[in-house]
């Protein structure tokens, strides 16, 4: 089995900060794993994702993502990832429709002058239906509610057909009833496409019985790690 994420004794800090944000992390995630990352505010959950996507460098230790050494290969790695950021909200005057925002996710794969191909259009349509947002797609992105914006951002990550999906509190604005639905959707995506999914969430309940592993962070350390198989 190949690894999606390998961290060996990784420590990192934010630039200009004197605190270590993550220290001595040892973590390996297999390709196709569905992993929940949890822990209190300030534990280092977002930092962990930023490390994986290459926004932060490991100051100590070694980090490989999808088999590639980071941060040297961050451009290649980023194209294979989908990242939904925490608290991502835009103001009403944002000049793009929801559909435009979704389609931007494909930008890095396009050659100059390229438009959308037919199968990409189909894919987009399917994803939008799956997430229940095909009816709001023509509205200005910034005028959508928090939960609607979050669904759009999830759609943007999904149409990239990522090998590794990084979700930072993707359910924070999603209503309680839909959360379980979304968790199951992620579970299905993993099963159908073997996508590795790392999801950060305070609300563990909708995910607990679906994931392969639960990682608990606190003060920049892994304090608990549970794997099902």
């Amino acid at each position, binding site marked *: 089995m190949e690894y999606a994420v390998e961290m060996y004794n990784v420590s990192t800090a934010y630039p200009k900060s004197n605190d270590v944000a993550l220290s001595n992390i040892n973590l390996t995630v297999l390709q196709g794993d569905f992993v929940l990352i949890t822990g209190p505010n300030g534990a280092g959950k977002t930092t962990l994702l930023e490390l994986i996507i290459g926004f932060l460098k490991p100051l100590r230790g070694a980090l490989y993502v999808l088999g590639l050494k980071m941060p040297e290969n961050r451009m290649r790695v980023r194209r294979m990832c989908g990242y939904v*950021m925490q608290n991502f909200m835009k103001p009403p005057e944002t000049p*793009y429709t929801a559909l435009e925002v979704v389609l931007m*996710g494909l930008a890095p794969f396009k050659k100059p002058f390229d438009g959308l191909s037919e199968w990409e259009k189909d894919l987009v349509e399917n994803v939008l239906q799956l997430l229940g947002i095909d009816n709001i797609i023509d509205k200005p992105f910034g005028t959508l509610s928090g939960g609607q914006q979050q669904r759009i951002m999830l759609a943007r990550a999904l149409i990239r057909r990522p090998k590794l999906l990084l979700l930072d509190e993707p359910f924070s604005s999603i209503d309680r009833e839909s959360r379980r639905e979304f968790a199951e959707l992620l579970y299905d995506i993993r099963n159908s496409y073997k996508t590795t999914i790392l999801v950060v969430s305070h609300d563990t309940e909708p995910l607990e019985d679906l994931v392969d592993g639960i990682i608990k962070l606190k003060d920049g350390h892994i304090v608990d790690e549970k794997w099902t198989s």
Partner: protein
Amino acid sequence: MIALLLEAIVASSVSGGICGYLGVYLQRLKLITLGFAVAHGALAGASIAIMMSCNVEILAFAFGILIAMTIETLHAKFNVERDLASMFLFSFSSAVAIIAIYLTPTMLLTSDIASLLLWGSILVITLGKIILLLAILAAMLIYTRAFRLELNSLLFDSRLAESEGINIEFHAMALIVFSAGIISVMLRFIGGLLLFSMIFGPAVSATTVTHRRQALVGALVGSAAGIFGVLVSFYFDLPIGATIALSIITSSIVVAVVSRLYHNFRIRRLLNY
């Protein structure tokens, strides 16, 4: 005389359009002060060119790019904020320009050379420069068309775009190269002190008028104000650069105020019915 006027009008409208267009991108990508620093880098380059009597445009362009690259390096390698690095190098460029002008071996007064560079002159416009301007315009249109999706993604959220694998440095550099190109061609026409009015003025009106198609509005305002400035300058025999700058600034204010009034009017109509 008429030929000169026509050339000035074409040059001013084309460059006004390009600058207006670029200004909106620079503003949305938070590269405004970077553009400012590039303009002063170009000014330093032009001054050195005059001192050593070599090609003003080429040296202005090279210096503009050099300054931009220095800022990017300071930003990427030393974690210095772009704005801070820009203002730091802006003073550097100004100092270099002043020393170069001072050292220029010439019969002219220092203030004459300075005024040529800082205030601009209509006499420097040639057919060759107009062709150069049109080439820059064409290149920029092709660039924005080719990378439309990437540029939109950057404008929407540059950090997200970066996380998805878009090469931000490439696009920032492309915009800087375009800015340095247009600035160095127009430097002696508009003058080094007034050039950025062409970049920033239209951006002001574009942001007040619309959320969509801001770059287009910026280009239109810049282009129209450029033509108007040339006409006023000819008619009243005023310095060309300053008149164009004032024309752009006035138009930007007028456009902003009119769009505000129109917006209020529409709201009131909506509330009344």
